[in-house]
């Protein structure tokens, strides 16, 4: 038999936690009224920088559940220099991500070779209808404003820092 019975000791722990919560305030926040800031790396929603996209389809192919839909066509753009040949550029007709299917793995953002996709920590985009979770390219483009700058790295890292195109 211990000196202090375990039950009493446990009650002491509970009491001290009550005192802590009353004096220092709770650890939780009341969500709709107060919000916690998600970390910059948090995978909330995918933003599309449309100018960089060449509709190369890499993201759509690498997606593990194939929830990205892309359609595009080639277009002739005016030449860069006067007198040059007109350039052929890829125009994006459709870029949809179905967030009803998305697994938030981030492979599309990782494989994009032209830096057109970015993670934004924004998370408030639930919908009453599941079909509305399909974000088209204008909606995905609007998320670009919420993309935070990339953080600097911990000491000893040899990874090159990246910049978000604005």
């Amino acid at each position, binding site marked *: 038999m211990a000196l202090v019975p*375990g039950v009493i000791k*446990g009650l002491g722990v509970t009491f001290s936690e009550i005192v802590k919560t009353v004096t220092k305030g709770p650890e939780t926040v009341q969500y709709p009224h107060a919000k916690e800031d998600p970390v910059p790396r948090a995978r909330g929603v995918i933003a599309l920088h449309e100018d960089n996209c060449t509709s190369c389809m890499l993201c759509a192919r690498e997606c593990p559940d194939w929830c990205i839909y892309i359609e595009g066509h080639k277009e002739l753009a005016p030449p860069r220099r006067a007198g040059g040949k007109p350039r052929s550029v890829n125009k994006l007709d459709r870029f949809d991500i179905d967030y009803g299917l998305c697994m938030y793995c981030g492979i599309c953002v990782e494989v994009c070779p032209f830096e057109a996709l970015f993670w934004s920590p924004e998370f408030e985009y639930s919908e009453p209808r599941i079909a509305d979770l399909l974000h088209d390219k204008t909606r995905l483009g609007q998320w670009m404003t919420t993309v935070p700058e990339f953080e600097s790295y*911990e000491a000893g890292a040899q990874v090159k820092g990246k910049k978000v195109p604005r």
Partner: protein
Amino acid sequence: MTATQPNIDRRQLSYIAGQAADARVNVELEAEGMTLNIGPQHPATHGTLRIVVRLDGEQVIEADPIMGYMHRGYEKLVEVRTYPQINTLVNRIDWLGSFANEVPFILACEQLMGIEAPPRAQWIRTLFFELSRIANLTLFLGDMGVQLGAVTPVFYAFRDREHILNQIESATGGRFHPNFDRIGGLKDDLPAGWVDETRRALGHIRKFCDVMEDLIVGNEIFEARTRGIGVIPADVALSYGLSGANVRASGVDWDLRRDSSNSGLVYDKLDWKVWTHPDGDSFARYWVRLQEVREACHMVDQLLDSIPAGPIMAKVPRIIKVPAGEAYVATENPLGEMGYYVVSQGGLEPFRVKIRSASFSNMSIAPWVLKGTYVPDVITILASLYFILGDIDR
């Protein structure tokens, strides 16, 4: 005081009770035994596990776990996905310690491809492996209280686990599904200030372990409900293929972190010990896991101090093709031994992946250990075996 009784009496009693239950089944097959369904929707089953229990009064004659209610067919799904895509799927097997699921698969692929991650990647990989162990077992420490009727500990567990999950999120981007491990290294390096922040989070976990020691381990009610209940002797534990803390609680000194020769993790460079307990009862399983969380905190501290500088990615082709061959790599996950047997035919996708998950084998002892116990103890024994349904059904 029940807590101070020698354990051997309880063990003998439960053995006799088991024999008696056996005899009763043999004598009166059509007896007025009552069948009780525990689950599939039962809070104690951590998901959708169904246990059909045949009772004689309060005593269990026969327990039959029925699994598969949450079968998601990962072994088949991965056959039509490329290696980087598989990583996101295997995250979801044991959802409380997700990062630990990725590691054995990545190590198996690295072994087949003959590449090794650079030291910095190995260090950070081990670091996250231990962090996911802390996140997983911390919840167990609180959850065990809930199964015994004490609701308070689980709130403390959720509160303090959040600090670890925040650290995992701020580095990987995902709280539960990090998807951070890559063949040949890691996805990204740590953000600035992460190391100090993690040290602070470990302080919360250390305090939590002390609180649990005061709140639960020393509690007379807890001891009375767990000491000598659900005893698994070492030879039975081994013959049923138990692993992890369940087998260490039976006194078997076996830990894959120390005993396997995996190249991708750096446990051999750390100073740590394997905790065992001779009793093999529910209390021992709780105690071993409590010590393991503390040991993991100790390991993470050492890892944080000694992360080497350098790249985090080895030279890996952009399109990953694993050469033909077979490899089995198992690691000591929070729940026990988890292994992937990868068969490749040289393509973009594996030909076959066999997943050996710890909970499936740990669950197989349930019919043996539940026989002869009483109904309230069924819940505590299941809780102390600590399975996660995603890990059983896959």
